């Protein structure tokens, strides 16, 4: 106990937060991967995974073991270190956005004043990893996938920022917690429905989800930026993708759906994180629903949609918000 009392408490808190967050990242990817496959089956009137465990519930751990056991094969003339660095660049930053997400009133590692900006910056980091993977793979498909990812992210980052700005104008704070506190009476989805819809569409494009999954369009690019990756490197990309998707859902929950706000639960302060998770996973369900409903857009359609519709609409939305905030 002497040793423990010598360690500053905020350090212990940080260590616990990091361990819990890392555990959560992997558990979340496993659960989401399973749900995605199961729901994909049900949307097509199939059963989905059924063989490993009850209702195929152990499918994802078994797949993980298989991927870990595989040999890492690098094709000739890849850009050596960068090729192996790319999956790590994809995965390593995913823990950071979780640190600023307020799951419940006391359940937040750090309440940064610029939490939203920090979160958006970390989400954009994925693009760097995708580009690195595509560029270092020495493969035309990978390269085209990476170029598409970058172009797509530049186009879709703008409406996201404009929508976040509309919310920030109303709360005059970038802190995740005070944005949730500001939704005490009314959720911002009712005040900013357009911003919510635009933000939701853009976050799907941002995380390279179908119908905007052009960087990994199977029918044209084999597997896009991760064509040359196998085994654990591939699964790191997948874990990162699912984690970023969940982070995006958490961001939308925070900005528009009132975060942890909901009917009071009898289990104490932390239990309100249940509301947060319900909302975030509901958004995840809609994302999965979109994936198995809509065909992939063409690249010109993708760009037209962003520049001709989403950006003008989010600009108008921002303008109206600014005027109303000033008047009221």
């Amino acid at each position, binding site marked *: 106990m002497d040793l423990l009392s010598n360690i500053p408490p905020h350090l212990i808190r940080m260590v616990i937060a990091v361990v819990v967050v890392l555990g959560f990242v992997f558990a979340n990817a496993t659960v989401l991967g399973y749900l995605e496959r199961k729901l994909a089956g049900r949307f097509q009137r199939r*059963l989905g995974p059924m063989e490993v465990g009850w209702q195929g519930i152990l499918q994802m751990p078994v797949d993980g073991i298989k991927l870990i056991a595989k040999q890492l094969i690098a094709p000739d003339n890849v850009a050596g270190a960068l090729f192996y660095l790319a999956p790590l660049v994809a995965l390593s930053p995913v823990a950071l956005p979780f640190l600023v997400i307020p799951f419940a009133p006391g359940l937040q590692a750090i309440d940064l004043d610029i939490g939203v900006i920090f979160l958006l910056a970390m989400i954009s980091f994925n693009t760097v990893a995708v580009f690195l993977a595509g560029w270092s793979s020495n493969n035309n498909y990978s390269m085209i996938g990476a170029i598409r990812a970058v172009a797509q992210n530049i186009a879709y980052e703008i409406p996201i920022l404009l929508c976040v700005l509309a919310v920030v104008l109303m709360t005059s704070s970038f802190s995740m917690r005070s944005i949730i506190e500001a939704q005490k009476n009314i959720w911002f989805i009712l005040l900013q429905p357009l911003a919510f819809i635009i933000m939701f569409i853009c976050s799907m494009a941002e995380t390279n989800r179908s119908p905007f999954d052009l960087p990994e369009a199977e029918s044209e690019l084999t597997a896009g930026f991760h064509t040359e990756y196998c085994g654990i490197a591939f699964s790191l990309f997948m874990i990162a993708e699912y984690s970023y998707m969940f982070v995006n859902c958490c961001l939308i929950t925070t900005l528009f759906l009132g975060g942890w706000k909901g009917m009071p639960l009898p289990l104490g302060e932390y239990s309100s994180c249940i509301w947060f998770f319900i909302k975030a996973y509901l958004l995840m369900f809609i994302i999965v629903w979109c994936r198995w409903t809509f065909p992939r857009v063409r690249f010109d359609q993708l760009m037209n949609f962003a520049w001709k519709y989403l950006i003008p609409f989010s600009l108008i939305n921002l303008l109206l918000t600014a005027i109303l905030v000033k008047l009221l």
Partner: protein
Amino acid sequence: MKKYFGDLITGAKSLMAGFAVTARALVSPVVTVQYPREKIAVPKGHRGHPYLVPDETGRPKCIACGSCMRLCPSQCITVQGEKKEGDKRKYPSAFIVDYTRCSLCGTCSEACPVAAIEYSDEYGLAGFTSGEFVLDLLHDLSMKENTPQVY
């Protein structure tokens, strides 16, 4: 301008229609049949390999007349018959179908005067050599061992 907003509205409508389609699929029952564990009934009119229809006593109805052998366009049927002591009629002593050559045309069952050869409802034959598909239908009638494995 009209096209701009028209595209937006028709696009949004079609997306909602798409959501409705998949939502209906989500709540409809699953159509998958877990094959080795569950099997669906073989539909009437399915053409499996020819088999010999047994009579009430379990012996083949076949009278070994050889019509099927003569009429088979692929010449894949070999019938030999004999009349043993105590039997009222001829019974086949060998009935071999080379299933690798059979085109499942059905001429044999049409030609049979006593309706003794029919299509079976077997659909999952598999084997390692073509010899395994030379089916001894008499053996088939008594026991299933000599036939290729069924999957």
